[in-house]
């Protein structure tokens, strides 16, 4: 058995020993241990080095509030930094090491910082490293970062699985200590849906370290009985190892569950789970954190909180040392002293800053044979890596100085209590307000903003009987609030209550020299190495607001967020400012309560589940053909189909020529499609498109541009009249949902009088677009009964026909400038159609082409792409598409804006074609265009290149650009300065091929 492990007692399983490594050394602990308790059992107090001064640091607490004992676990993908040893459940084979220590925790080079501590005073970031300015990024910051360390980020992917779960309940109980358990049971008995979450492995909270009994049975047994009672209710969900980390609006709470951490890493299944809870009522029963006293060199290893010392001995059967001193300003440490003495520690004395100790608790301690020294304080500490002795001196009556004879007491641990701070984090996150309770010397909940109640220690009720009573009351109130009938009231559990003597707030314990003088340091925030002197200096320097103080000194930052230090820090600020604590206030608590892993936040949104990959019915064919895909919104669209190791350009050249000279096919299924029905359908289109729709014949198609109210192009597409009151609109792929939303919004809010119904049919149709001079031949074979002559089936019309045995709609529209048929069948027949087309197409040399070829072909024709030629600042006129804007219609969306002076300017950026002087040069898209060939920046920019390609058809490059006054720059030369070179370009009309449109008819 390890040296400091008692042979009996505690909640550990001595039959299940576990081996672990810490800083390279092997140790043994037991099932039920935390890493901290197992280290203490082995006499290891020194677990880390501090942030700035690299002072040796030990374990201070037994829970979430731990400021010092930060460790990193495991290696490789399982490496995890910033864990609190006090919360890490021991498992067999665990490997941990200290942070902030290099090369080792025993010999730490950074400790030299301690000798230069004058450099590291409050706000040192802003003072010491100011000059020269250029040194900050290159020299100071990297060095500070390395020295401060914190933790390293893991460098490998985490192999474990994390996920998320939504949950709903009537009552969420945060914390399963005495108050939480009572609240949960009352809620459960009323039939409520209850969630009980507790961050620890076992329910019970403070009761797990309690020696007294409840209802005549040991506290731990009572907890187990409560847990079993709760578990029997079908609507109760019990979640141990689950921290409520965030409290957001409308009673939405986030919880982090550690499902398998206690078993080790790589256990399979889900390691950690993020719960997203919507609770009708919340009972906060989050307990309280003990805070230290701020005395000289109070950070030495071996000095820990009294409640923690008590928890270690009672819950884990571990002695914090052999010989201890208890130092306190309140009664709770007396219980620790009594329990420690009972379980084999020698308690030399209880040092109480209060002038007398006459209360019931003091009498109990005396009866247990303990010596109490009243009106005294620890004025100094001996020992660096472990406390060796303390110096006790009488306190002056005002508590400002120590004087008189100094008594030296040898000890190897000190148990300290400066009082208790209710864990009001979640209440504060919820928007609730606090008030300072002078008598209890702590902040307590004052005003609730959301549907919650605080009960027990987190409400400032620091005695067991009160916590049980408040918990029961909160549970009953919660079920009543959700409309349930509370169960019949039962008697509260019976506990022994010792009346507590009042606490005596002593925010700074004077040392032998005034605070800030001499070598001794009075630490307030151990994690951030902030001392009382730092806070006093900051307030002298004008940082009077507690929020400023926090940022200037870094007090309350870091992984513990000042759980043990905040109240001491602001009390010292208040003292320095001579301003009462309530008017100094507290900093705001923000989520998370304790750190949450990135894995938990990411959940399953990783790898192939990180986003939706929308695929068309023909996707499998594209994959089999080796297509390279392009992301268009969430869609995967074939970009090009490389053959025999072709490059993008080679493949696109081949695909382009195949369409221009033979026949090609494009999967166009992704276009948005909206079915529009109703007697006002044509009028509706008149209002949303810039051109006129009333006279479109049935079975005919028309291209339309849709503007926003500001007159800027929003979307475009072809709409077909299927019947007198029935249209099918197509939209761009990326805008499909946005267009439907906008149109539906107009119908519901602007024009509710219009009788029009919209239905999305984007996904209903699969579309194969066959284009090229040989398209008619191929389609003729597939649809032998259809007359494909230009007279019978002209450009911009639609026919219903049987294609390859499938009922289809064929649209004769063209985005390539070639004779083109877009064949549509229901999605469930898309692949059948595609395969049938290829079966027939083989003899015609049918070539599949992707979006890149589509882009080149349409650019050759000067067809725009919304989002490429437009960017929300471009009108149809800017695109040279005056023809599409009706001058006769009384109104349409965007019309009014065309007469705005800026929109009506004639020298706006306008769409032009660009031909580089050197036909081999392809301009980069986005390149800026200037009037002069060789200016020095900054020089006026005329605009930018919107599209640019190599055109295999033309054997040269082509580009489109938006440039100022483009219409008047025809045939002039402009320049594209590219840094390494400047390309001269001729401004031309943005149509490069078949400007008369002869090819459309084949």
């Amino acid at each position, binding site marked *: 058995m390890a040296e400091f492990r008692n042979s009996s007692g505690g909640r550990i399983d001595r039959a299940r020993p576990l081996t672990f490594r810490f800083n390279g050394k092997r140790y043994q602990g037991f099932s039920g241990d935390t890493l901290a308790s197992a280290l203490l059992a082995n006499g290891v107090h020194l677990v880390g080095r501090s942030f700035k001064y690299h002072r040796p640091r030990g374990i201070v607490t037994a829970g979430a509030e731990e400021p010092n004992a930060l460790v990193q676990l495991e290696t490789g993908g399982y490496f995890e930094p910033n864990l609190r040893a006090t919360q890490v459940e021991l498992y067999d084979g665990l490997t941990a090491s200290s942070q902030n220590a290099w090369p080792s925790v025993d010999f730490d080079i950074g400790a030299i910082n301690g000798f230069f501590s004058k450099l590291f005073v409050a706000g040192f970031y802003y003072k010491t490293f100011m000059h020269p300015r250029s040194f900050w990024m290159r020299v100071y910051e990297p060095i500070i970062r390395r020295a401060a360390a914190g933790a390293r980020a893991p460098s490998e992917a985490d192999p474990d699985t994390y*996920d*998320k*779960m*939504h*949950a*709903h309940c009537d009552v969420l109980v945060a914390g399963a200590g005495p108050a939480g358990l009572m609240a949960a049971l009352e809620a459960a008995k009323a039939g409520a*849906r209850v969630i009980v979450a507790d961050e620890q492995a076992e329910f019970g909270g403070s009761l797990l370290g309690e020696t007294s009994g409840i209802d005549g049975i040991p506290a731990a047994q009572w907890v187990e009985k409560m847990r079993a009672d709760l578990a029997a209710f079908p609507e109760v969900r019990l979640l141990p190892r689950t921290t409520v980390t965030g409290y957001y609006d409308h009673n939405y709470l986030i919880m982090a569950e550690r499902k398998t951490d206690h078993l080790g890493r790589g256990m399979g*299944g*889900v390691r950690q789970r993020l719960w*997203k809870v*919507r609770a009708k009522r919340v009972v906060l029963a989050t307990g309280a954190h003990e805070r230290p006293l701020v005395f000289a060199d109070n950070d030495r290893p071996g000095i820990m909180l009294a409640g923690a010392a008590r928890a270690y001995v009672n819950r884990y059967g571990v002695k914090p040392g052999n010989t201890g001193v208890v130092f306190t300003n309140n009664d709770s440490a007396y219980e620790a002293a009594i329990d420690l003495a009972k379980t084999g520690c020698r308690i030399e004395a209880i040092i109480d800053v209060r002038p007398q100790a006459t209360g019931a608790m003091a009498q109990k301690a005396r009866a247990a044979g303990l010596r109490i020294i009243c009106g005294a304080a620890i004025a100094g500490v001996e020992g660096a890596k472990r406390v060796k002795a303390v110096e006790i001196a009488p306190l002056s009556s005002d508590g400002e100085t120590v004087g008189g004879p100094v008594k030296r007491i040898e000890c190897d641990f000190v148990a300290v209590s400066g009082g208790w701070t209710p864990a009001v984090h979640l209440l504060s996150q919820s928007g609730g307000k606090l008030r300072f309770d002078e008598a209890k010397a702590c902040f307590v909940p004052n005003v609730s903003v959301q549907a919650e109640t605080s009960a027990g220690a987190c409400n400032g009720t620091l005695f067991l009987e009160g916590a049980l009573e408040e918990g029961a009351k909160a549970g009953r109130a919660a079920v009543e609030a959700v409309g349930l009938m509370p169960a019949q009231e039962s008697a509260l559990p019976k506990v022994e209550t010792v009346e507590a003597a009042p606490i005596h707030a002593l925010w700074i314990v004077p040392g032998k020299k005034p605070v800030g003088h001499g070598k001794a340091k009075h630490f307030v925030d151990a994690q951030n190495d902030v001392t009382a002197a730092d806070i006093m200096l900051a307030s002298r320097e004008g940082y009077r607001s507690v929020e400023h103080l926090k940022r200037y000194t870094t007090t309350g930052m870091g992984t513990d967020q000042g759980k043990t230090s905040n109240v001491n820090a602001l009390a010292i600020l208040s003292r320095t400012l001579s301003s009462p604590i309530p008017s100094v206030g507290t900093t705001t608590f923000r989520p998370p309560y304790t750190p949450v892993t990135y894995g938990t936040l990411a959940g*399953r*949104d990783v790898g*192939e*589940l990180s*986003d*939706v*990959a*929308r*695929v*068309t*019915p023909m*996707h*499998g064919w594209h*994959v089999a053909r080796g297509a390279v895909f392009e992301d268009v919104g969430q*869609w995967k669209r074939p970009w090009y189909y490389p053959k025999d190791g072709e490059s993008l350009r080679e493949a696109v050249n081949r695909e382009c020529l195949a369409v221009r000279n033979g026949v090609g096919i494009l999967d166009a299924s*992704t276009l948005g499609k909206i*079915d529009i*029905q*109703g*007697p006002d359908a044509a009028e509706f289109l008149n209002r949303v498109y810039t051109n006129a729709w009333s006279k479109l014949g049935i079975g005919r198609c028309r291209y339309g541009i849709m503007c926003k109210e500001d007159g800027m192009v929003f979307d475009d597409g072809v709409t077909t009249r299927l019947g007198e009151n029935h249209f099918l609109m197509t939209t761009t792929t990326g805008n499909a949902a946005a267009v439907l939303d906008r149109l539906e919004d107009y119908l519901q809010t602007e024009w509710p009088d219009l*009788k029009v*119904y919209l*239905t*999305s*049919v*984007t*996904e*209903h*149709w*699969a579309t194969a677009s066959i284009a090229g001079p040989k398209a008619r031949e191929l389609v003729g*074979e*597939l649809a032998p009964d259809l007359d494909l002559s230009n007279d019978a089936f002209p450009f911009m019309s639609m026919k219903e026909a049987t294609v*390859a*045995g*499938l*009922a289809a709609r064929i649209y004769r529209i063209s985005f390539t400038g070639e004779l083109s048929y877009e064949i549509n069948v*229901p*999605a*469930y*027949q*898309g*692949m*059948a*159609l595609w*395969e*049938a087309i290829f*079966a*027939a197409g083989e003899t015609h040399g049918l070539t599949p082409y992707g979006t890149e070829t589509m882009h080149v072909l349409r650019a050759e024709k000067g067809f725009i792409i919304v989002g490429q030629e437009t960017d929300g600042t471009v009108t149809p006129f800017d695109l040279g598409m005056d023809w599409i804007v009706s001058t006769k219609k009384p109104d349409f969306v965007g019309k009014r804006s065309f007469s705005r002076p800026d929109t009506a300017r004639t020298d706006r950026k306008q769409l032009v074609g660009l031909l580089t002087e050197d036909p081999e040069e392809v301009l980069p898209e986005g390149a800026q265009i200037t009037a002069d060939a060789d200016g020095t920046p900054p020089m006026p920019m005329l605009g930018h290149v919107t599209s640019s390609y190599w055109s295999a058809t033309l054997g040269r490059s082509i580009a489109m650009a938006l440039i100022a006054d483009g219409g008047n720059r025809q045939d002039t030369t402009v320049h594209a300065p590219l840094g390494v070179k400047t390309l001269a370009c001729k401004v031309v009309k943005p149509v490069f091929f078949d400007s008369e449109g002869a090819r459309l008819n084949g």
Partner: protein
Amino acid sequence: MADAMMTADAGERAGALSRLFQGGEASTTAGPLTLSEMPVPGQINLRGNPSDAAFAEAVAKVLGCRLPVAANTVEKGGDFSLLWLGPDEWLVLTAPGAEAELSAGLVEALAGQHFAITDVTGNRALFRLSGTPAREVLAKGCSLDLHPSRFATGQCAQTLLARSGIILSQVDDAPSYDILPRRSFAEYTWRWLEDAMAEYR
């Protein structure tokens, strides 16, 4: 021969997962859970004004069941279900292939009224998830409260499952749920569900 190759079987309907389960049945199990893609049902989107008695009566006559007007409820007819999607919008799910006749019947019965009947059979895939932990599986990606007291057999909702919009409908107390993602989201939704089911294996 060439003709045969050029002609597809018009009666054959490819499921949305035919790429992932080539030729095979899209179905998977994990412990007590079963997830299957159902044969592509006929899907008709119906729009109209339910407070117009003529509309409601004509629909009821053709479908033989009441038009559900309570939000997120489902009415069952012979071999179809009628899902409430909005105050003036419903989705009719029919036996595969029955949608054309049903559409025609509705169009005829509603002649002269303002309505919209749209064949959307290709719009969505239909998955069925069954088994005791089904509710928990869905809770991993759906923020609705699926507790039986809040969402029971006969109820439906349009919601998000992870990153995909779906129509969700509870079909029995096993519980079994119909999950209808848009067809292009089907592969993602399937993969996501399979992944979420893994812990119950």
